[in-house]
């Protein structure tokens, strides 16, 4: 499977995958994934967006999942961000939190820095890597007709689960998000913890 097979527009992906985003606590990896997630939720209080610490999205989601076992946790990140901490998929598999979904928006390139080709553009298959790490529930999609099945996968498969969405090259959602990570932390915690 090469990127030429991908027919998904990343900007239309998340609303179809997560019809009820307020049910989740969400962390999004740096760059395009966070712009998509922020536009999708209108930067809601249940979303922690990242603008750095590349590779930390899956670990942050795992920490949330282990420490809030009664909540549904979603990690939304890109292929470059995920590659930087690919070993964290093994940590997820071993820890096996029953409430964690990982969605990788895989465009096969480093969009934020000029569209340089990434490993997944040709040979690297992130779904296989997730399966090899020991995550039993994995799925890869590449066209809009598969979005319904993917949304169902995110509800019905046994977590932890990993979905790789191969998307067309193209810009992420247009959204100017909050870059102050201390403010993002405070907003997220206040909304979650003060509500009890």
């Amino acid at each position, binding site marked *: 499977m090469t990127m030429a097979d991908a027919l998904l527009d990343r900007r239309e992906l998340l609303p179809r995958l997560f019809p009820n985003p307020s049910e989740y*606590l969400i*962390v999004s990896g740096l760059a395009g994934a966070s712009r998509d997630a922020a536009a999708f939720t209108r930067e809601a209080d249940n979303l*922690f967006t990242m603008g*750095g*610490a*590349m*590779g*930390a*999205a*899956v*670990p*942050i*989601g*795992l*920490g*949330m*999942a*282990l*420490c*809030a076992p009664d*909540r549904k946790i979603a990690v939304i990140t890109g292929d470059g961000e995920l590659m930087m*901490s690919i*070993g*964290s998929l*093994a*940590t997820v598999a*071993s*820890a096996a939190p029953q409430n964690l979904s990982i969605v990788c928006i895989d465009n096969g390139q480093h969009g934020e820095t000029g569209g340089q080709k990434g490993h997944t553009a040709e040979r690297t298959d992130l779904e296989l890597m997730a399966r090899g790490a020991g995550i039993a529930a994995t799925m890869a999609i590449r066209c809009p007709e598969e979005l319904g099945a993917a949304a169902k996968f995110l509800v019905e498969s046994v977590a932890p689960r990993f979905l790789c969405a191969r998307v067309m090259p193209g810009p992420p959602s247009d959204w100017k998000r909050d870059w102050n*990570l*201390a403010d*993002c*932390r405070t907003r*997220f*915690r206040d909304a*979650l*913890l003060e509500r009890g």
Partner: protein
Amino acid sequence: MTEPKEPRWAQKLFAQLVEGGVTLFTHVPDAGNKALIQLAERNNETVALLLSTEEEGVGICAGADLVGARGVVCMQSSGVGNCVNHLSLVKGGRFPLFLIVTMRGDYGEMNPWQYPMGQAVDTVLKAMGLLVFRVDSEAELQSATGAALAACFTGGQGVALVLSQRFLGAKTF
């Protein structure tokens, strides 16, 4: 044959961390943190989580903080180097991060591979805005741990409790 009992200092350190609200012990194995992790594995109230690399622990503890829980990252000194960019969460995000660093490349070290990172630990941690609480003897452990807990989870700081080879003893080959 029964497992040898964990040393008293490790039992006291574990109890003090649990008393301080820590429930999650992320780690990359090291001879220096072995006893602490065994205690966390055995205890019903705590979770011991094996990492692939140390910087994962930084993110995992940040995730724990986002949902109101407290974790620590236990690592050998060489792991500090792996964590550096992810420590941006401390200075930039004011995440209260608690590292427990067991030293190599320190007092009495025999492996030349350990010296470069071991000798850079304090500088690297401080450069990223963490407070360093170094322990050179068992007598210092309780007060240093208490100070680190207060600075981290009440004071909102990133901290590293650094257990030196003078305290732990150098590995012999």
